[in-house]
C-alpha cells in the first residue's frame, strides 16, 4: 500500500553536473578578496607583532582607567542628556524632510528626471560624515549643541530618505492601482495607498536612526558641537583616564538602554 521512491519503476533522474562556470567564478571572487587584503597590508601599516612586544605598556595604559572616577557624575549625566536631546531634534527634523524626499527618490512614484537629481543630493548628504558637517556648522552658528543638531539633520536626512524610498519601492502596487482606479490624484495615491503600507517600516527605520544618532552625537562634542563628547575630549586630551573611563561607562549605559528601548518599540510596530 505504501508508496516509496524506489518501486515506481522509473529511472532515477541524473544528479545535475557541477556548473563549471559558477565554480570558476567562485575561485575568482576569492582570489580578488585575498588580493585586496594583501595589497592593503602596507597601506594600512599592519604591525601585529607590536601588540605583543609592547604588551607591558598597554597593560600600564589600561590600568590608568581603573578605578573609574565618578566624582563629577552629575555633569556627565547632564551632558549625556544634552547629547540625547541633540539626537532627538536631529532625528525629528530629518524625519520631517525625509518623508517628501524619500517619496521623490522612489522610481515607482516619480519619473527619472525627479528621482535621479534628488537621489544625487541625498547621496551627497550621506557621503559626508556628520563630524564634517558639525565642524562646518560650528563655524556657521557657533559652538554648541545647535551645530550638532544641524549636522545630524543633514546627514540623517540623506540616510532616511534612501531607506524610506527603498521601502516605497517594495510596496505592493495593487492597492495603489485600486486607488488610482477611483479617480484619485497622484498625491492622494501616495497618502492613501503608499504611506499606510510603508508606515511600520518607516517608523522602524526612524527609531533605528535615532539609536545611531545618539551614538554619533556622543562624538560630535569633539569638534565643539556640544554634549558629552566635549567632556570626553577634554579628559582624553588631559590624560585624565579615570574620569574618561567614567564618562565612557555613562555613554555605554545610556546608549545600551536606548537601544533596548527602541528595539522594543520597533518590534511593536512591525
Amino acid at each position, binding site marked *: 500500500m505504501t508508496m516509496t521512491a524506489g518501486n515506481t519503476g522509473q529511472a532515477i533522474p541524473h544528479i545535475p553536473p557541477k556548473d563549471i562556470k559558477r565554480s570558476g567564478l567562485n575561485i575568482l571572487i576569492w582570489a580578488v578578496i585575498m588580493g585586496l587584503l594583501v595589497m592593503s597590508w602596507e597601506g594600512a601599516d599592519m604591525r601585529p607583532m607590536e601588540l605583543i612586544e609592547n604588551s607591558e605598556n598597554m597593560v600600564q595604559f589600561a590600568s590608568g582607567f581603573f578605578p573609574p572616577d565618578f566624582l563629577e557624575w552629575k555633569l556627565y549625566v547632564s551632558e549625556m542628556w544634552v547629547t540625547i536631546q541633540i539626537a532627538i531634534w536631529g532625528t525629528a527634523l530629518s524625519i520631517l524632510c525625509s518623508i517628501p524626499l524619500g517619496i521623490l527618490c522612489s522610481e515607482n512614484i516619480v519619473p527619472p528626471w525627479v528621482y535621479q537629481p534628488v537621489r544625487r543630493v541625498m547621496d551627497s548628504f550621506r557621503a559626508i560624515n556628520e563630524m564634517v558637517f558639525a565642524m562646518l556648522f560650528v563655524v556657521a552658528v557657533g559652538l554648541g549643541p545647535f551645530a550638532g543638531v544641524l549636522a545630524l539633520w543633514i546627514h540623517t536626512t540623506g540616510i532616511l530618505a534612501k531607506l524610506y524610498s527603498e521601502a516605497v519601492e517594495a510596496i505592493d502596487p495593487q492597492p495603489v492601482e485600486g486607488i488610482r*482606479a*477611483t479617480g484619485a490624484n497622484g498625491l492622494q495615491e501616495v*497618502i492613501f495607498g503608499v504611506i499606510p503600507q510603508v508606515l511600520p517600516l518607516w517608523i522602524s527605520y526612524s527609531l533605528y536612526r535615532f539609536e545611531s544618532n545618539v551614538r554619533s552625537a556622543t562624538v560630535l562634542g569633539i569638534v565643539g558641537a556640544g554634549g558629552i563628547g566635549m567632556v570626553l575630549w577634554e579628559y582624553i586630551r588631559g590624560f585624565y583616564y579615570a574620569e574618561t573611563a567614567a564618562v565612557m561607562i555613562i555613554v555605554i549605559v545610556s546608549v545600551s538602554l536606548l537601544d533596548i528601548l527602541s528595539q522594543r518599540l520597533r518590534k511593536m510596530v512591525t
Partner: protein
Amino acid sequence: MLAVDVKGLSKTFLGDKKALNGVSLSIQEGEMVALIGASGSGKSTLLRHIAGLIKGDSDGGKVDILGDSMQVNGRIAKNARKTRSQIGVVFQQFNLVTRLTVLTNVLIGLLGSVPRWRGTFGLFTQDEKTRAMAALDRVGIADHAGKRASNLSGGQQQRAAIARALTQGARLILADEPIASLDPASSKKVMNTLERINKEDDITVVVSLHQVDYALKYCPRTIAMREGVVIFDGPSAELTPDFLRELYGDESVELFADPVESKAPVSAPVREEELALAAG
C-alpha cells in the same frame, strides 16, 4: 449610450507578444457581460485598458467610456481622471489598502469627486460617511466597517471593494477575476452582489471569469477571448460545453476546472477511496 466602446485596440508587450490584437467590442449601458478565456488570453489586459490603467500601442485603437474618450492610439485622454471616477474597478486581489479600516477604504472611492484638498487630508463629511456605510450595508458587511481590511476574509474584502465602487458612484464596474481567489460560497456571494447592483442600480458590469459556469449562470452575454482576440461575442446561452471545447481545444479542461455546484459525484468516490487507504 454605450458604456464601453472599444475599437481596434492592440497592445504589444516587451518581446513582441501581442496581448491584445485588434479588439473591438461595444457594451450597452445596464448590461452584465462576462469575459471568459484561459489564463493569458488577454482578459485582464483588456479590462485594464478599458479602465485606462494601461496604454495601448501607439497605433492601437481607442477606448470610449460613457461617451468620453479614455484613450486613443496609446495616449490616455486628458480628462481620464474624471472618466475613471465613473468606473469602479474590482480586482482579483481586491486591491484594498489592508492597513486602513474598511470604512476608510470605502471612502477612498470618493477621492475622485470630493474637493481635492479635502480628499487629500482624508476629511470626509458625516454625510459622505453615511453614504459609505449605506454601501457597506448593501453588500452585507456593515458590521465590519471599523476593522482593518486585513482582518476580513477574501470574500468580505471583495465585497468591500464593491462597496468602494458603489460609494464612488460608478456607472460602470469592471471586475477582473473577482472570484478567482475565493472559495465557492464566497464566490457566489460576490457574484450575487454584482448581479444585484446591476439589476437594482442599472450599473453596467463587465466581469472577467475563469470559470465558464459562473458566466452562464449570471451573465446574459459572454465575450470569449483567446490569444488577444475576441473569438465569441453573444448570448451566454449559446455557449454549450461542446461549443467551448471546439472553441478552446485542450484549454477547455482548464476552463471547466472549478465547477460551481452539483458536479461533485465525479470526485466523491475518489475521496472515499483515499479515506479507506488512509485508514488501512
